[in-house]
């Protein structure tokens, strides 16, 4: 994978990322396998403006553990 730098955030972003328009139309198994493969191959950026609600739980199932690795402890409690 090749990466490009966002100069304002300092983050290296893969030149190929994921759009999620229709991933909600496939089974959870297919979606999770696809997302895990993308992660393994170095894709590190995904958009979540998607056609269907299922996309969010598919990402959760596939990548929640990976996301924990990125997290920086925050002194703030999430308040919504």
């Amino acid at each position, binding site marked *: *994978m*090749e990466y*490009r*730098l*966002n*100069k*304002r*955030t300092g*983050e290296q*972003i*893969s*030149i*190929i*990322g*994921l*759009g*999620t*328009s*229709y*991933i909600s139309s*496939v089974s959870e198994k*297919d*979606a999770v*396998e*696809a*997302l895990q*493969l*993308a*992660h393994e*191959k170095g*894709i*590190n*950026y*995904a*958009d*979540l*403006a*998607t*056609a*269907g*609600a*299922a996309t*969010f*739980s598919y*990402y*959760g*199932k596939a*990548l*929640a553990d*990976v*996301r924990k690795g*990125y*997290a920086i402890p*925050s*002194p*703030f*409690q*999430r*308040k*919504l």
Partner: protein
Amino acid sequence: MRYQVHFSANYETGQYGWTTELETVKKQIDWMLRSLQTDYIDYGFIHCLDTQSDWEDYQKNGILEFLLEQKKQGVVRHIGLSTHTPALANMVLDTGLVDQMMFSINPGYDYHHGDYAKGSADERMALYRRYETEGIGISVMKPFSGGQLLDEKTSPFGKALTMYQCIQYALDKPGVLTVLPGIRNVEDVRQLLGFLEVSPEERDYSVLGTFTPQDALGSCVYCNHCQPCPAGLNIGLINKYYDLSTAGDTMAADHYAKLEKHASDCVNCGHCSDRCPFQVNQPEKMKQVASYFQK
């Protein structure tokens, strides 16, 4: 994996919808985070604004304030904007809030074809340069114009382009960091990753020059089809640094200075102009660039 999450997308019905009600936005963000099994958002997006009144409503209804509050609390790391409209993009960029922008870029939209072909070719290119100059990244949505460009029956050019040509086209635009094609399964992901393996010829989109509209001809799009230059100039990069510098990018002159060969090394042989699909008079351009940078 970093996520772009959109503040005002609404999935209450199970399908995509759009809301400007603050309470619904709050509930939706909470639901998205729980479904994603995560407690942070890398890029919290001001979602899909295309008119000035969209932007005014977004502020008036408190959604922008909510997004900024989430950033202050550390839930949102950075702010993004998704839009299809250059005029609106410029308006929001003026606030200085935005670190990343999702914009629809493909040869169809850039050359006046398709639902989201907003702004002239020049206006769109000027916007991409502005992102690069201000260090804001672009993530590209609709790189294939919703698939239209991949089929000769639907392509506005009467000719199909390949996925890889479209991806390269988007990646060559100033400011672009990443292209986001839709995927559904492992085969789709493998096909996308194929981009990294194919030859430069398979990524070459110079065929576009044969159907570029008049107002876009004569402008370098940095496709590098002119290579190899007999005098060793990187003509695409020279053009890019010049365009960025004249758009106000203070780093561009430095980058230019570090090039091995400069516009003043042009021997005026015309090899580049003969090859240029976009009818750019490159030797003339090199004179202009050499006089601007004084080398």
